[in-house]
């Protein structure tokens, strides 16, 4: 079970009940179904994987989710856990509790080897017209902020100068 754009889930929804109380996103059926498995409340009898990915473009910020992810990373690195910001008012208690026990994979840029492989493919497809050698790979890699794939694609494929 996979979900894209996790921060849309980890907040109150835009809806209100007839008593005019805010409805939390976790109370909506489809989201509830995902979140129950994501947090471990329910479990799949034959095993499986529940993966949630955050989205960083045009997605709302959920401070509780960000904090929870930072804390998971701290735990993985063996550091002291990041504390809550005492001046922030938009923490969500339900989300704090929900995202306690997860595994986190933080994506960074590609390595030069991976970048080379990708650029070879682009060149072989005829999309990238330049020579693919150490120099050009290093150039595109550096311009993409140390290998961020989206930026590499933009720089190599979409910008036609």
């Amino acid at each position: 079970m996979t979900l894209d754009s996790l921060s849309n889930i980890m907040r109150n929804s835009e809806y209100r009940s007839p008593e005019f109380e805010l409805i939390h996103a976790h109370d909506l059926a489809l989201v509830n179904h995902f979140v129950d498995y994501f947090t471990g409340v329910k479990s799949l009898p034959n095993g499986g994987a529940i993966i949630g990915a955050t989205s960083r473009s045009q997605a709302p910020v959920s401070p509780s989710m960000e904090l929870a992810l930072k804390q998971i990373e701290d735990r993985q690195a063996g550091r002291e856990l990041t504390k809550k910001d005492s001046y922030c008012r938009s923490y969500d208690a339900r989300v704090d509790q929900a995202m306690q026990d997860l595994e986190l994979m933080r994506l960074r840029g590609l390595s030069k080897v991976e970048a080379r492989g990708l650029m070879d493919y682009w060149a072989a497809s005829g999309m990238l017209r330049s020579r693919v050698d150490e120099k050009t790979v290093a150039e595109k890699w550096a311009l993409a902020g140390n290998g961020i794939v989206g930026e590499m694609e933009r720089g190599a494929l979409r910008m036609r100068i």
Partner: protein
Amino acid sequence: MAAQLPLPNPMIPSLPTRSFNTSAALYADKKRMQAIMAGRKQKAATGESVRGGQKVTINKKSRPQKSGKLPEPGERKRLRKRIVLSNTNALEVEGMANLTPGMLTDARMVGRVVGLPGNVVDGLRASEAFKVNQGWGLFRHPSVLIREESVRVSELLQQADVKREMIRLAVDGDRGTGKSTILLHAMATAFLRGWIVLHIPEGKYSLRIYQLLLIMFSQLEMSPTQLPTTFLSHEQHPPFTPNQSTRLLG
């Protein structure tokens, strides 16, 4: 005693005087005045310019009418959201293998681009795993780069398969680092292994409440997993009021 202007002496010859204003003399000459006024009235009646010269009339233009056939309802949305996975203008990459279950956890495959087999592509398309802004339509066959992280995800899935346990993973990173693509890789792994895949493509749209389903749900007291297949008309049912036991269907 007030100063007085000297009166004109008839004995002294003087130059003929002209006043600045001709109207006075004109008004004094009644007949001439009447003829001029009559002429002006005539001109005004026919629409000619009273003072003489050319007259320009500006006609009010009518608004441009929209012509052409409008697209059908849903057409624009369909075009906006269509996903093109293949481009015959791109070259065929020789020697590019298709993804097989054996390749998934092989660390030597890191840095290689592999194609996605047909059934996997069908499954991914049906689950809405491909996004419009990603560059799938630039190449001949949909293919993915195998990264260290994708090998790791495949290993986790294999572990879940073997041990029959549930893996809960959150994927985070900056913009453009490949989070959605890692999800796609995970889904491709699942399809290759014959797993059932449920993908929620955009968390934002999973928050919509479908009013008709809500009403049905409250009336028939169904559990959230039993999604109704028929839609009933809104007028047949009273307005929905949620209580403690109902779950809102989103």
